[in-house]
């Protein structure tokens, strides 16, 4: 049953950056795009489960810190080897300075 949960303050994330968020045993990655739109994906790379939050965000792309697999974090799409499986995305929104993501 999907529900919206509060993940972080909008200003916890720098523009064009990513932070980790853990909820109920699951890891997520919350992104703030260069134009201040917020997104959320699974926290782990689909290649080898490395946490994406240590990776570099450039534009709309997150690059895994381990083997440099790249995903479009706005859609979850895997952008080529070594990542072949898309990463799951979750709806995200900001209300009154707090970022909410819809999980479950």
């Amino acid at each position, binding site marked *: 049953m999907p529900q919206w949960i509060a993940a972080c303050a909008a200003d916890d994330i720098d523009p064009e950056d990513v932070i980790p968020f853990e909820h109920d045993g699951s890891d997520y990655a919350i992104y703030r795009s260069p134009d201040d739109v917020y997104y959320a994906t699974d926290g782990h790379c689909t290649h080898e489960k490395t946490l994406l939050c*240590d990776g570099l965000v450039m534009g709309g792309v997150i690059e895994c810190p381990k*083997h440099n697999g790249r995903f479009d974090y706005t859609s979850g799409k895997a952008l080529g*080897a070594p990542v072949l499986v898309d990463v799951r995305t979750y709806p995200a929104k900001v209300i009154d300075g707090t970022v909410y993501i819809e999980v479950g």
Partner: protein
Amino acid sequence: MVIAGAGECGTRAAFALREQGWDGPVILAGAEPSPPYERPPLSKTGELKPICDPATLREADITFLPGAEAAGLDTAAHVLELAGGRRLPYRSLLLATGARARRLPFGGAPVHVLRTRADSALLREQLRPGRRVAVIGGGFIGLELASSAAALGCAVTVIELGPRLMGRAVPARVAAVMAQRHVAAGVDIRCGTGVTGLARTASGVMITLAEGGTVEADVVVAGVGAAPETSLAEAAGIEVADGIVVDARFATSAPDVFAAGDCCRYPHPLYDDRPLRLESWRAAQEHGTAAARAMLGGTEPYAGVPWFWTDQHDYTLQVAGLADTASCEVVRVRPDGTEIWFGLADGGRLVAAAAAGPGNSVARDIKLAEMLIARRAAPDPAALADPGVALKSVLRSPVAG
């Protein structure tokens, strides 16, 4: 299209041929009996990790031939011959034959090396709590094995010929961070000495050191480098010089024959066309994709920034570029204490960067440095050194290429 070698490079090239639109036959012939697998985990966790689900090879209509060692190459007739006699005619051939682990130049006792899954399985059987493990060679393979052996409860000694660890490719102060980590984990590091002999004793193996003294061990592993597999090319009259010599499109001296990955030596456009032979996972991947493009007629030179990582204990060390092309260094000390090393050439171009830290904590900064290197940027050294200046802003400033 025929590919000799089903490792990281060859397998990537096979898929890349399909991704780039080639509809004709693709034959991927590997000497090893198993489906393509990743080598990096072998020195870390020892796990066997497939490069792909074998079904995906079939789905891509790639003809995979395991246990298919190449025996001969007729470049005029455009035929690769396998041991056993099968002949594979080719329009274009990619030699992705990799490298083999070098061995010590003397005997006296059994010595493990690590290149294949078979090597890994044999070695792992020996790594048990309390066993004394001697690692000859303080490079990446040796140090990763030292880390995993220590984690498995072995008493580990590393013996390195050079004055310090990882002298080939890692700057001194970054290697020192890792050395400290090994010492903290109880690994006995002996630098500045070679090994002159091995002898079996009643209680194990006695290793005689060049600088005097001995080390006794139950298990001996040699991580003393890899030699490129070039005999097939040499026998066919293809130019070889510590690696199959290729141009920036991975083309060899024989028509329609390409070579890429650990087995080739290619000129790097970012480093004055210096001929490089890189032994890294990333290079194998990128070469595979680029060689496929060349096999299909592409003419773009390959200029990917050299990059590799090594996992030792709970730290990861990453290097971008070629540290030995730097003539001056700049160090950024982050608030968390981690140092990012930058190497600049005469004239101020960033040519290399390296750092070691817990987990994946250095990845972002090294990635940004890699991008600066790719753009031939000559960043202000003061900006590189100042942890208050975001590297991303250096990347986006007008001087960054």
